[in-house]
């Protein structure tokens, strides 16, 4: 028995300006191809084509490659859409594939399918298992980080109202003999409207970017005077942090929103870490520590003239959670007349640059994008993708809520409305975890006095 659903994902780790690939795999992709490019492309030929959204408007243009089953990576029909690699465009393209009938692939799912369809050697089973495991853990970690702050609060509020509504509707369906008068029909409609409004709110702020940024924090730490504030100003593009040659200039964490290739981030400048008796500085350092707790990526800034990681830095580094990515930035290379470069030491990324002259800043941006916002070279999903997953789930839930509202307006049969609400909740459960029928019944029994 085969899988019949269609999966899609962004397949390339995109740097700046390059091309990005959205890969789609499924048993039969002809209908999907029709929708996205308007025709079924010739097999194994590169074709230049426009990519269309669900209204038929072109969102991008690029190369299409079509590999019909079984001669493809997964053994199913595979469609590769190569567009302009910017994350924003790639996401749009991915969304189009999803509204055309695909669903977002689970981490490692392409490889899984390739394996299940005998495209990979049996001996590779172990590595397939490893890929699934590694990418799942990475995705789970990112999903956790994505679910922070405002975003999480908004989602949980939404789920709660939805659950309450479902509880009432299901109680009415399963316990018609109870006199409790669980609800007024009119109530359902107004509650639905409230839920929809909330959902719209979340989606709107997501579109404006603020939500995507929520939870994605790049924190600059390091010894006093190594050039953190200078680097911050560079990244932001304006002077938001005071720069002096006096160590201990920055006392309070400064937070600023930036965008790299359409991906919004927060950059946070902190007080330099060192032993001090100055009361104000002490507070600043304490804040640095608490800021680090919320970080998704730490940039440890060092003066490249000095000898690497200082003892105080070491203490901080050791206290970081193991999975939190850290990039070592060796600043002030202009004073050494060195070139900007990236090296990897024991799996850790080291970037040499000059914040003052701007040399190497492009490199840093690319790496930031890779680690925090986008797919990393190892094929793992970044937080941005995790958040994107969440937003897709919201969109899906929203569609079911729209249906539910239409049904409520028509005062049609309650069981259909209940079905839409169930589907809406199921969409959200990819964010909030499983909510079983038994959980729902539990809510009903603890809220209403039911039973004879």
């Amino acid at each position, binding site marked *: *028995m*085969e*899988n*019949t*659903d269609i999966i899609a994902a962004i397949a390339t780790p995109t740097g700046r300006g390059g091309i990005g690939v959205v890969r789609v795999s499924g048993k039969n992709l002809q209908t999907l191809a029709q929708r996205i490019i308007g025709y079924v492309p010739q097999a194994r030929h590169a074709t230049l084509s426009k990519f269309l959204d669900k209204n038929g408007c072109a969102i991008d243009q690029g190369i299409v490659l079509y590999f019909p089953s079984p001669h493809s990576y997964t053994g199913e029909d595979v469609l590769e859409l190569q567009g302009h690699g910017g994350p924003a465009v790639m996401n749009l393209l991915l969304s189009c594939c999803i509204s055309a009938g695909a669903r977002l692939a*689970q*981490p*490692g*799912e392409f490889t*899984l399918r390739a*394996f*299940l369809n*005998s*495209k*990979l*050697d*049996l*001996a590779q*089973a*172990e590595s*397939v*298992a*490893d890929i*699934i*495991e590694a990418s*799942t853990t990475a995705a789970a970690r990112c999903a956790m980080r994505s679910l922070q702050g405002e975003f999480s609060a908004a989602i949980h509020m939404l789920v709660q109202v939805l659950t309450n509504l479902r509880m009432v509707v*299901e109680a*009415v*369906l*399963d*316990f*018609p*003999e*109870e*006199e409790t008068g669980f609800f007024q029909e009119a109530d359902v409609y107004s509650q639905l409207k409230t839920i929809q409004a909330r959902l719209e709110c979340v989606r709107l702020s997501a579109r404006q970017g603020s939500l995507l940024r929520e939870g994605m924090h790049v924190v600059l730490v390091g010894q006093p005077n190594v050039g953190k504030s200078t680097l911050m100003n560079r990244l932001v593009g304006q002077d938001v942090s005071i720069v002096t040659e006096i160590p201990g200039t920055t006392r309070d964490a400064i937070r600023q929103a930036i965008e790299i290739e359409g991906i919004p981030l927060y950059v946070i400048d902190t007080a330099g870490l060192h032993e001090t008796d100055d009361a104000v500085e002490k507070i600043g350092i304490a804040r640095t520590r608490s800021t680090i707790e919320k970080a998704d990526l730490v940039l440890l800034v060092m003066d490249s003239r000095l000898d690497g990681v200082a003892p105080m830095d070491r203490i901080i580094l050791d206290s970081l959670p193991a999975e939190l990515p850290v990039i070592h930035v060796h600043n002030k290379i202009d004073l050494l007349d060195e070139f900007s470069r990236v090296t990897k030491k024991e799996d850790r990324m080291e970037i040499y640059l000059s914040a003052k002259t701007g040399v190497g800043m492009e490199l840093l941006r690319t790496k930031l994008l890779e680690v925090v916002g986008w797919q990393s070279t190892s094929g793992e999903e970044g937080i941005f993708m995790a958040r994107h997953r969440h937003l897709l789930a919201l969109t899906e839930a929203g569609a079911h809520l729209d249906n539910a509202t239409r049904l409520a307006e*028509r005062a*049609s*049969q*309650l*069981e*259909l409305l*209940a*079905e839409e609400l*169930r589907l809406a909740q199921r969409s959200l459960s990819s964010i909030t975890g*499983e909510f*079983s*029928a*038994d959980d*729902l*019944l*539990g809510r009903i*029994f*603890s809220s209403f*006095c*039911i*039973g*004879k």
Partner: protein
Amino acid sequence: MIFSENFDVIVVGGGHAGTEAALAAARMGQKTLLLSHNIETLGQMSCNPSIGGIGKGHLVKEVDALGGAMAAAADEAGIQFRILNSSKGPAVRATRAQADRVLYRQAIRRRLENQPNLWLFQQAVDDLMLDGESITGVVTQLGLKFSARAVVLTAGTFLAGLAHVGLASFQAGRAGDPPSMSLALRLREMQLPAGRLKTGTPPRIDGRSIDYSAMMEQSSDTPLPVFSFLGNAAQHPRQMPCWITHTNVSTHEIIHGGLDRSPLFSGVIEGVGPRYCPSIEDKVVRFSTKESHQIFLEPEGLTTHEVYPNGISTSLPFDIQIKLVRSIKGLEKAHITRPGYAIEYDYFDPRGLKNSLETKAIRGLFFAGQVNGTTGYEEAAAQGLLAGINAALKTQDRDAWCPRRDEAYLGVLVDDLITRGVTEPYRMFTSRAEYRLQLREDNADLRLTEIGHRLGVVDDARWAAFDAKQQAVVHEQNRLHAVWFGPSTSSNSLPETDALRVLGKTIERDCSLHELLRRPDISYANLMTLPGAGKGVIDPLVAEQVEIQAKYQGYIKRQKDEIARNAHYEATPLPQDLDYTTLGGLSSEAQQKLNQHKPETAGQAARISGITPATISLLLVHAKRGFFSQKKKKVNESGDTAR
């Protein structure tokens, strides 16, 4: 003494599970023995005299579609019939009947006695006979030994049953019946994972002492509903109404006054009771702000004055029971004929079952009904039927039949039990079924009768009736697809007045009758009044089917797509003797859960709580590779050798 005859299937217990099991196995041609404490209590309703209701009615229709007895017996015994949820949509619509206890028992008994291949014998079973890990028969109280290749155990609330009234307790299977102590002990010795559950029942009242004048009357629906697909309203005996009254503040005070002698609140009862069927003391304590609870007074039959007060199940001491009953409006002078009580009993963790209801531990031993942690006649009957079928199949060396969640409530019931276990007595609700829209009462026959025919539980008469109905439905659907109306300018246009009357607007493009029927506000009956719509069908069941299928087409298609997407999980078997700790990549939590459940398919595994999609992906990888070839050498040709 060894009984001279051998049987294919032995069913232990003559309750709702046992009788359906025995009937099903015998219908399938297997030589079947039904062993029960007492032939007089075959088909006895231990608690309230009613069959059906939301979710339960669905199960009854499924049992009927598979040739079972429950619906037909209810048609012969029902003294009040109603359709619940009639305005809320066909999927949640359910039939409920108040049954005359005596008539119901007789209806079941008659079927048992007249069933070819079925033998009845009155004896308590005290022990099971095993050969290694296979069942070979049973031993009764008198030491009689009966041999069979398959045994279905349906002992209900009888295993180590302990009844409570106040702080007094006594051993019983239910009031008036002895418990099964030796068998319970033996089963525990066999290391089958057991637990204790609890349920309760209200005191019964002499109807002559009830003042109905101040109560609300509730009569049967008109037209009179019918349970069985082969039944008709003419089979129903005389109808009687139910009555509705309420508890009040003083009732609740009386209850509070007795809590110190409540076995429930003083910790005497260990078993867990159902949350949705709480005792009145439970309701009063947990929902203390509620000043009144509804009570249905249900007649126990045509030939008795006894009345069942539905809503005041209790295990309070008897003196409190009298006072609380008499505090209720209309019951001031009530005479109690039987005290209410709670009962605790052994059940077996259903996670120890395959989805055929065969125990994983002992080959050929099947469990059905209350012993699996469920409650309710309908839940018991449905499991009994399934266990009977699978016991028969086993003795015919045929594969088990395991209905899927999208096929039947029966599938939902069994799958829930075996993948999630129970923490309280399990009752069916429609909200448990994710494919609710297609698991309707009205199409239970369309879903199951053909399967039942193949299995051998559906007889020719039922098959013929079903076949005729199904053909009529298809015929009418084809006709509706073939009749077209066009816009006003076309030759096949509708007169405007008719269009407005039936459709609410004129037709703008060519539309078949079937398309029109799909619109939400257009009924089949109304549609057939259009000039040119033709005659339509007369059989209301056919018309209903055509209409519902048209209206729900979009939803059903969506559910079907989803089912198709998940089908490959259900089709991926997992070995039963696998130690999951040897599988790489699984979290230790997943390993532990999988070892505990030993799911039969990847689909079942996915429904175990806490098992993630990634775990399932890993299981698929291991399945493809062949679970036990872990240490084997590399396979050189690329992959296709995988099982």
